[in-house]
């Protein structure tokens, strides 16, 4: 069980601090796969990364993160180390280049485990068993990363990242660089790992709503550093309450429609700069429903069980 409250992460830049995460609060339950979606630059990757390791230019401003009732010291790089890999783990966006190119994979894994005070030989059988689940033979452990295909490397990383049965796994854009067939396999593997109990909760960061519709239990939509909507997958797909979610879903292609005849609507305009974000609702400049009250910031409130939205018109919407 992950509980995040009022988390604020800014990026240091020469022009000032970019408020990439501006007070987000949500929870992910045990056994839940939560999809995290939004446009580029909405802060979804920042959120994913912040939960495991802040990059150098990322600045912790405030908020709390608790995993299984224990507070995670995400602002303290050293104090966070014992939690990494054992409690929180990540399948990074760059999974295909995440392995040291000059070490045999098995040796690299052994060295990593040894550095964490574990014995590679005792975990070897489990490692090989899990590789087999994803269709990899133990031979890969004797190979160099370059001898594997991109998809194989990604599967190795998935197995390695989850080897210690972490409570929380962050899967950052894991399907983005793959062809559709591989996407399906990777998505299936994520669900399988959850079902087998290798991972308790999972946050799947992606801009691909179609993948989330297949594997996520709930979906969290972000916009410009803030949360827009969180709901069970079915609700998001069938009855989204936030106008941004609706437009986002509306920009997806549907099977059977030829887009020469009908243009995808898309969303007009661009997200606001996070250097000095506007007051009030951040989506209001692009929102077709914007009205006077939108100059005040809408709270992220529950409008139905498990369905939270930050929009003044959400109630009316959900019902209408």
């Amino acid at each position, binding site marked *: 069980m992950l509980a995040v409250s009022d988390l604020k992460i800014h990026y240091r830049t020469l022009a000032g601090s970019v408020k990439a995460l501006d007070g987000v609060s949500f929870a992910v339950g045990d056994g839940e796969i939560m999809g995290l979606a939004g446009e580029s630059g909405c802060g979804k990757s920042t959120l994913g990364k912040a939960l*495991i*390791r802040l990059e150098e230019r990322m600045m912790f401003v405030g908020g709390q993160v608790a995993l299984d009732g224990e507070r995670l010291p995400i602002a303290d790089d050293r104090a*966070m*180390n*014992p*939690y*990494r*890999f*054992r409690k929180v*783990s*990540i399948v*990074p966006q*760059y999974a295909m*280049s*995440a*392995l*040291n*190119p*000059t*070490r*045999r994979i098995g040796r690299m894994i052994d*060295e*990593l485990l040894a*550095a*964490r005070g574990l014995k590679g030989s005792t975990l070897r059988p489990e490692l090989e068993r899990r590789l087999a689940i994803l269709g990899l033979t133990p031979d890969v452990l004797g190979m*160099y990363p*370059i*001898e594997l295909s991109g998809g194989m490397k990604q599967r190795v*990383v998935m197995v*390695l*990242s989850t080897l210690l049965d972490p409570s929380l796994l962050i899967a950052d854009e894991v399907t983005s660089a793959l062809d559709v067939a591989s996407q399906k396999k990777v998505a299936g593997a994520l669900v399988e790992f959850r079902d087998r109990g290798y991972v308790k909760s999972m946050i799947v960061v992606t801009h691909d709503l179609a993948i989330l519709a297949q594997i996520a239990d709930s979906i969290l939509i972000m916009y410009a550093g803030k949360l827009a909507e969180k709901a069970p997958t079915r609700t998001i797909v069938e009855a989204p309450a936030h106008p941004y979610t609706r437009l986002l879903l509306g920009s997806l292609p549907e099977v059977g429609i030829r887009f020469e005849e009908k243009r995808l609507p898309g969303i007009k305009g661009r997200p606001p700069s996070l250097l000095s974000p506007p007051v009030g609702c951040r989506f209001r400049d692009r929102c077709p429903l914007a009205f006077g009250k939108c100059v005040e910031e809408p709270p992220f409130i529950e409008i139905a069980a498990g369905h939270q939205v930050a929009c003044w018109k959400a109630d009316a919407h959900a019902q209408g």
Partner: protein
Amino acid sequence: MLRYLARKLIIYLLTFIVAVTIDWAIPRFMPGNPIDALVSRIALMPDANAALTSYFMAAFNLDQPLWRQYLNFWSALFHGDLGRSIMLFPTPVTTLIGRALPYTLGLLLPSILLSWYVGNMVGALAARRKLLDNSVLPLGYLLTATPYMWLGILLAWVLGSTLGWFPLAFGYDQSLKAEWSWRFIGSLLYHWVLPFASLFMVALGGWAIGMRNMIIYELESDYANYLMALGAPQRLVRKYAFRNAMLPQITGLALQLGAVVGGALVTEIVFSYPGLGWLVLSGIQNQDYFVIQGVFLFIIVGVLLANLIVDIVYVVVDPRTRVGLQGDAA
């Protein structure tokens, strides 16, 4: 693997033939004629000059057509005969090179190897500590931008001329006889310090900067980020980064070692140090075909051998090249 090596060897062989041909041709395309210079030094009566010239032309086989000279050159080469020097007639070129080689190797091998080792260590440390980095980086750029001979002249001026701590020229005290005595060895070392220091310091800066930049690059790479996200200690991440950053440094070292036989021309000239660089300069000044050819041949063989060694070492240390050659063979 064998196919890869065989193909490499053929390429090296072809390069060798072309390079040797150019080596043979260049002195012959230079304006002037070494025999004229030799004869004018002897300065006899004009008609005696003509006789002497034709005698020497025949003695050095320079009266034969060029293609004949070219073939002679190759056949002599395979007998280990590099000809006789014209300026120091009749000393064989091999003797001259043999005499100069120890000085060059004694000067360059330690300076290249030590500067490489120390430079890499300093660079790796600089990448780790901000304070050290702030001093190493500017100093490194300053050193590496310094021309060898300028630093050499500076050292000679300050430490040799002004302070009088070190001798200014030659490989050993010219009043001594070259023999295996402690006095002679001491004199050799004494004369070795300044040229060594100038070569060592300039090269040191380059290696340190190269290593520092490579390590910082490696520490920002994806595999380093992934390891840190999985809570790997700095020790492990740095170990990997260091190892991977070494790869280009190994290539650099081998190429430097290949050029070693050419001598450090300018440094040797500044300190009148009797190495190969000094020899090739006198060869050029006296249009001594055979000395120039001989020394250049040494450089050619040295560079090619060094490249070949890099090719082989790389296959051992970097798995990516191994896969590359599998792909090639397929």
